[in-house]
């Protein structure tokens, strides 16, 4: 089986998922190369979120194969395992720990041992503390590090969540609609930040905002009805007649 798989970070082959007869994913296949930045577009119900659920272990596929780093079968692992392998996920709605401070949010996300015993006797080392400072600097929340995450604005929560993902040090980052509900200024900033992050790891961004995708300037995959409709540069994909009919034309 390994001969037919190209050198890949993430490899989905023929993945199908159905909920009560509705095919959320229909023989979906695509490959993400190490270090790649990829945007995924598609109309509502195209299966974008389900695809992320399958990759992160939240949903088990009915059929098909999902491999990480060529030979790690993700369909047999749970969410915590997959996160520890190095796949980070950002949700559509910013989900940060509201009753924790900004600092504690990052500390919890930091890529350290996650067992009950290890956390019970964890001591914040100088190195860890410097790393947290560095991440806070990157997401521009240093000034608010001691505040409860609940008190942040919507955009700041999105950034905090991105900071948490950085702390996780994933090899692959899945980002679901990162700029939903952001102001134009924040949207443009986020594009810069994501490009920066993608320098050191693979990032998959699901987004509706075409302007944002243009800012990112990356390879685009268009999903519709649970499978890949077109793939290529934004110009190429947006000129595809099927994409226009299914998505852009609406």
């Amino acid at each position, binding site marked *: 089986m390994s001969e037919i798989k190209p050198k890949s970070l993430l490899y989905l082959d023929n993945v199908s998922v159905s909920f009560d007869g509705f095919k959320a994913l229909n023989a979906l296949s695509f490959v993400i190369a190490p270090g790649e930045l990829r945007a995924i577009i598609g109309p509502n119900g195209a299966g974008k979120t389900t695809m992320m659920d399958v990759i992160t272990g939240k949903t088990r596929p009915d059929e098909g194969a999902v491999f990480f780093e060529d030979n790690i079968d993700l369909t047999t692992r749970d*969410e915590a395992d997959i996160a520890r392998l190095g796949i980070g996920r950002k*949700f559509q709605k910013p989900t940060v720990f*509201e*009753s924790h401070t900004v600092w504690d949010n990052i500390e*919890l996300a930091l890529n350290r041992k996650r067992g009950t015993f290890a956390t019970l*006797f964890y001591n914040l080392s100088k190195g860890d503390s410097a790393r947290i400072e560095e991440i806070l600097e990157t997401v521009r929340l240093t*000034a608010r590090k001691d505040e409860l995450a609940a008190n942040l604005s919507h955009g700041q929560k999105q950034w905090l969540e991105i900071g948490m993902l950085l702390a*996780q040090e994933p090899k692959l980052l899945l980002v679901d609609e990162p700029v939903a509900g952001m102001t134009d200024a*924040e949207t443009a900033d986020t594009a*810069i930040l994501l490009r920066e992050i993608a320098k050191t790891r693979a990032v998959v961004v699901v987004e509706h905002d075409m302007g944002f995708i243009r800012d990112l300037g990356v390879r685009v995959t268009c999903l519709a009805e649970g499978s890949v409709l077109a793939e290529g540069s934004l110009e190429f994909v947006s000129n595809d007649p099927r994409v226009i009919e299914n998505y852009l034309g609406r």
Partner: protein
Amino acid sequence: MISAFILKSLDRNISVCIAVLAAVAFIVPALNLLVSTESIFHIPTYAVSLFGKYLTYALLALALDLVWGFCGILSLGHAAFFALGGYAMGMYLVRQIGSRGVYGNPLLPDFMVFLNWKEMPWYWYGFDHFWFAALMILAIPGLLAFVFGWLAFRSRVTGVYLSIITQAMTYALLLAFFRNEMGFGGNNGLTDFKDLLGFNIQSQGMRASLFAASAIALAIALLISSAIVRSKFGKVLVGLRDAESRTRFLGYRPENYKLVTFTISAMMAGIAGALYVPQVGIINPGEFAPANSIEVVIWTAVGGRGTLIGPIIGATLVNFGKSIFTAQFPEIWLFALGALFVATTLFLPKGIVGSFRQMSRSRTTRKRADTPEHLQVDKVGDKGANLPAESLAAE
């Protein structure tokens, strides 16, 4: 490692509370034993026992706060762990009666003679040793919580469903312990205790010692709980209470965290029960009643959920109120308790301690907002965030 773990637990409030408990553990017995009965400083023995009982309730409420306040598990069956610890202690105390029982049987407790049993059931073996009983006080509630939690948390049962099955668990135990053939004294439970560790259980010295032991147990439990919630482990707990799936995607296994906490909490409840039984002199299946577990929830809510100190205050105050009410106007106590719960939910949703903390916190943030340095930093941050945006918008 351990000392660093414990040291971290000591913030100002917790230190004060532990110091108060430690002081109470010595001063109250001293005022009872050493001061003459005519002095106004003398504390009568009945009061020592009564407050000793409140301390065990406080320990039970603290145990509940650990799972409810920090894990978000609303256990409506915590009195079951309390009762199991109590039964383990009760079994030891029954074995200490020896041949002084009504039937004078040197081997079998009275209720077994009454039921015409010829020999002691296997699960009563070992309870004539205090160390064995002490081990069981921790092991039985801990094991039940572990098995129950393992099944429930692995299947991701949460919220109200979890509350209902904890309630079912305590109810099932209530029915089981009512049965004579279970071998725990049925309806009457275990009573007529004589000695504890060779000393008369009714004696003034023993009463005072049990009070001191309860206060010290509570102080130690508070220290351990505080260390747990202030560690990174505790931060994960609060994280999974607020956004469980987020912790999963960060690589934590919430079920393991809940299981560890639930088991520790059940063991604390077991210790509370074991200290309660010798002070009230009886343990019977009534302690498993679902209403008891719900009362614990009320104490915790009144004092302040998720504050550790709140439940201690809540349990003491509510039970003090209960003692007064049930003596003066027994028929309205339940109404008063209900009204208290409604009033807490409406006017003090964070409980007594939680509301105090909120007030002091809002005062400090207001103070901080006034400092120019803070404003300055914020402005720089805003400008930084806007700069690239403006340049991009211009393109």
